[in-house]
């Protein structure tokens, strides 16, 4: 009896202290979330629950990295089982005969072993394999937590085994079969050690109990300053993630207005704000900072980080978190106060390194949204005027001439003089399709870009598609502008494009530029745009299905396909280009990084026009090296004009033009149809 009272008192005191501490330490975090900007993430609740369950219990993303996934699953399942143990242990304290039954008891012990196996694997990973992604993480924290977990499960085994020795002599119960098979192994050991006496067993039980329940309580109080806060925040982070096409940057009407009074005005004001301080972040952003598990998967896939640039998505989140913690702790000396998030906490070089490829978000097991934070911080730099010389020039061109190249808007459709197909002038006549050409395809003087545009034009013309252009009414879609953080300029460009598209008569849009595709498909609708939009690979796929574009001979080449970030990862279009390549008789060999894990060419988010100094290796060149490893592959197939520019340059820089040619999907389709690309006599 005395033993139970002592333990109960110990539990009570410890629980009050630790839970109190937990609350005290959690409050600033919750308060920071409460004072952050609102964003509503309650839509599609059923889907959210389903997918959260798949991520949390099924470890869908975590298991992409086999070892880490499995060991985490072991430890995670232990946490679930832990609940059973707590119920039993506390129950026994109140009423010694309480039991969760032999089946569950057996389960608990199984998981004790699994967790221990998980811990061993985790230590093996951290100490022996030592993956680079942990660089910069707080490894002591990780090891401390592993130690705590070990203590807890060891405690479980100890107090369960001593409990059996106490059952009869102390609690006066008959020995029952509780399913804790580990006890059967340990009890003889204790007895042989001479710890079978009621007194020793009581001590042993108490030690085990303290290890178990004590460590759990300590763990709770420790959590708020640890990466293990994801124990609490992981599931909510998954639940409240951004739904729909990942490429959408602007919030939807439902995200902004909970009451659903959306869609009243045709064009809404943009609701994104630069992140000058934590108050400009959404509560979701703040949640992200504290959910980060420091696993470094984002860092592993980041093209900027691999190129040796200062950005690591993980460190970005951690640096922001540490700065926020400092603020919440009241360490608000004037020095801290005068630090700006963009520039001081996160350096400008770091922010401008990002290609906005989204690989980090795709890799993150707890669905942290890195890119919106980077863009928001960039926006703060932009508003302060801190933009490097070259991108500044480009931003000004966008503002003045509505294209990145500083060319006269009237010269935008100049490329069409090269082809015979007569495109309708949507400023005057109507057509079924609008071809939104985009800046790079219209103006870049890269020969590959010209080839691909000509090929697409010939195919569309040959298939008899009713296509028109906006001519000089078209301006840059602003996809990169938005992601460079120039929100106002994006709004200006988008508004002008939408006005032009409202005046023009057409039913759907096709684009040869994944960046424009993304903006028109995901961001323009938030401002009121309603027409359907397709990437040309989707259109070609349809035309081939209908037989309007018919390959007459198989190309018989081995090629690899590069998924553009803004077509694949951000818009989940993976099959259309592959399908049409297969129909042309192309043997597709996938690169190790393909589909959603594709590796960026390095041009996105305005990087195409930025300083590359300090790069160890350009992402585009790393990517070409990856393709060169594939046996027998002679063609590197792209479906984005920016990719064409970047990879043509990379192939030249690596001097491997003879081994690998960079071609556009459209070029290959054209070749397999045997149609002649007809140049007009004018050129």
């Amino acid at each position, binding site marked *: 009896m005395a033993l139970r009272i002592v333990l109960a008192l110990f539990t009570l005191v410890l629980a009050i202290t630790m839970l109190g501490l937990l609350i005290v330490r959690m409050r600033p975090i919750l308060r920071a979330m409460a004072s952050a900007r609102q964003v509503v993430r309650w839509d599609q609740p059923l889907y959210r629950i389903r997918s959260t369950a798949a991520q949390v219990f099924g470890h869908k993303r975590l298991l992409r990295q086999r070892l880490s996934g499995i060991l985490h699953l072991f430890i995670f399942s232990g946490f679930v089982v832990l609940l059973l143990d707590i119920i039993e242990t506390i129950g026994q304290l109140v009423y010694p005969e309480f039991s969760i039954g032999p089946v569950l008891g057996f389960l608990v012990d199984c998981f004790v072993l699994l967790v221990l196996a998980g811990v061993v694997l985790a230590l093996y990973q951290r100490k022996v394999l030592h993956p680079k992604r942990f660089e910069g993480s707080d490894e002591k924290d990780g090891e401390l937590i592993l130690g705590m977990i070990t203590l807890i499960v060891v405690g479980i085994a100890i107090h369960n085994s001593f409990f059996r020795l106490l059952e009869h002599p102390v609690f006066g119960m008959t020995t029952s079969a509780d399913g804790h098979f580990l006890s059967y192994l340990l009890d003889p050991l204790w007895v042989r050690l001479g710890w079978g006496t009621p007194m020793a067993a009581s001590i042993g039980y108490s030690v085990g109990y303290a290890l178990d329940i004590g460590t759990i309580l300590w763990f709770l109080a420790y959590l708020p300053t640890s990466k293990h806060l994801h124990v609490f925040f992981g599931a909510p982070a998954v639940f409240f993630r951004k739904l729909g096409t990942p490429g959408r940057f602007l919030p939807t009407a439902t995200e902004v207005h909970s009451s659903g009074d959306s869609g009243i005005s045709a064009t809404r004001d943009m609701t994104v704000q630069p992140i000058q301080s934590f108050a400009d972040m959404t509560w979701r952003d703040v949640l992200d900072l504290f959910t980060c598990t420091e696993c470094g998967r984002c860092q592993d896939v980041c093209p900027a980080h691999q190129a040796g640039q200062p950005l690591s998505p993980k460190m970005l989140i951690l640096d922001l978190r540490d700065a926020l913690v400092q603020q919440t702790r009241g360490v608000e000396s004037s020095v801290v106060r005068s630090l700006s998030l963009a520039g001081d906490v996160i350096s400008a070089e770091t922010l401008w390194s990002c290609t906005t490829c989204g690989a980090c978000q795709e890799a993150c097991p707890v669905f942290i949204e890195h890119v919106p934070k980077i863009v928001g911080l960039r926006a703060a730099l*932009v*508003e*302060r*005027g*801190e*933009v490097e*010389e070259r991108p*500044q020039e480009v*931003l*000004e061109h966008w*503002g*003045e*001439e509505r294209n990145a190249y*500083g*060319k*006269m*808007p009237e010269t935008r459709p100049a490329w069409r003089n090269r082809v015979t197909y007569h495109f309708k002038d949507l400023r005057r006549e109507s057509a079924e399709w609008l071809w939104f050409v985009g800046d790079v395809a219209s103006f870049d003087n890269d020969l590959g870009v010209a080839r691909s545009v000509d090929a697409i034009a010939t195919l569309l013309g040959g298939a008899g598609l009713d296509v028109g252009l906006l001519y000089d009414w078209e301006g840059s879609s602003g996809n990169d502008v938005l992601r460079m953080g*120039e*929100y*106002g*300029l994006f*709004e*200006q460009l988008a508004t002008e494009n939408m006005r032009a598209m409202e005046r023009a008569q057409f039913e759907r849009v096709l684009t040869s530029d994944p960046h424009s595709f993304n903006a028109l498909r995901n961001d323009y609708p938030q401002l009121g745009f309603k027409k359907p939009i397709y990437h040309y690979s989707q259109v070609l796929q349809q035309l081939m299905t209908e037989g309007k574009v018919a390959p007459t001979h198989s190309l018989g080449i081995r090629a690899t396909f590069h998924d553009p970030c803004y077509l694949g990862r951000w818009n989940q279009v993976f099959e259309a280009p592959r399908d049409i390549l297969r129909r042309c008789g192309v043997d597709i060999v996938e690169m190790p990084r393909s589909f959603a894990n594709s590796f960026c060419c390095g041009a996105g988010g305005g990087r195409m026009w930025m300083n590359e100094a300090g790069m160890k290796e350009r992402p585009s060149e790393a990517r070409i090296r990856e393709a060169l490893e594939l046996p027998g592959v002679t063609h590197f197939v792209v479906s984005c004009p920016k990719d064409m520019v970047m990879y043509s340059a990379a192939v030249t820089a690596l001097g491997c033009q003879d081994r690998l040619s960079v071609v556009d999907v459209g070029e290959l389709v054209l070749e397999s149809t045997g149609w002649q690309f007809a140049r007009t006599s004018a050129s």
Partner: protein
Amino acid sequence: MKVLVCVRSDLPAPMARVDNIQRLMEEWSAEWAGVLEPSCRSALQLAKDLSGPSGGFTALSYGRGECRAALEVARAYGAVDAVHLQSAEGSLRHDGNTIARALAAWVGERSFDVVVCGNSSGVGPVPALVAGHLGWPVVTRVDGFKKFLPQDDSFRAIELTQRLDAGWKRQVLARYPVVLSVQSGFIPPQYVSVRRRKEAVHGLASNVTECELPVWTDGHAPAVLQALTPPKPRTKRTAVPDAKSSAADRLKSLMGPAATKKVEKPKEDEGPRVVEGSAVELAEELLRFLRKKEFLSNS
């Protein structure tokens, strides 16, 4: 320090064609968004840097409706006062001589320490003319300033770096009042975002001081714009008589400098030419080319 910066609006570079410019000269059409002339951006940045984080500066522009664009950007850069200088003389927009007189007259009635002007390619005479009219020194092609000296009343000056001919630079100490001219790109300018610009437009709505200048009656004959035409290369004089010209012309040309018969450029000069040969031959070919193009003197 009281800083005045003179800014002007321009056509966006790709729009600068004869027809647009002609229309522009007649009347500024509202459909054209003027843009800040690039060197004025450097001027604004310099004015902003000179007046420091707390001090404001005054921005002045001239012309008609298009000057709004320049004043808006100036405002976004932190100009506290915006002045629009108008004149009954229509040429205030185009003729540097009139502009300089007007600016000098306006500045002369006020007490600025520093007047900063942009100078697009370093060959605009306006900043120097203003200085000349005012009797102030002018420090041209400024590309930075270092520090302020103690601002007592007896000696108020700034230290500036000035770009000179052929890549030379010098550091100077200039006493107030002084006119500074700066070329585009000399002072790396801050970016002005569209949102900031819009706020500036808002702030500008009620805040432009309109100044009317009187018509001068001192018999000063102004420069008169006669015509705007597409650029036509001037036919060049050559030192060598042209093989294709008539015998009489060639004789005249050989007889002396008085015979400055202008000759058409020989046709084969046009178009690209690719030459092969040894390094020595190529180098000599190149030097010949440079001499012909007058990048090297013929001696």
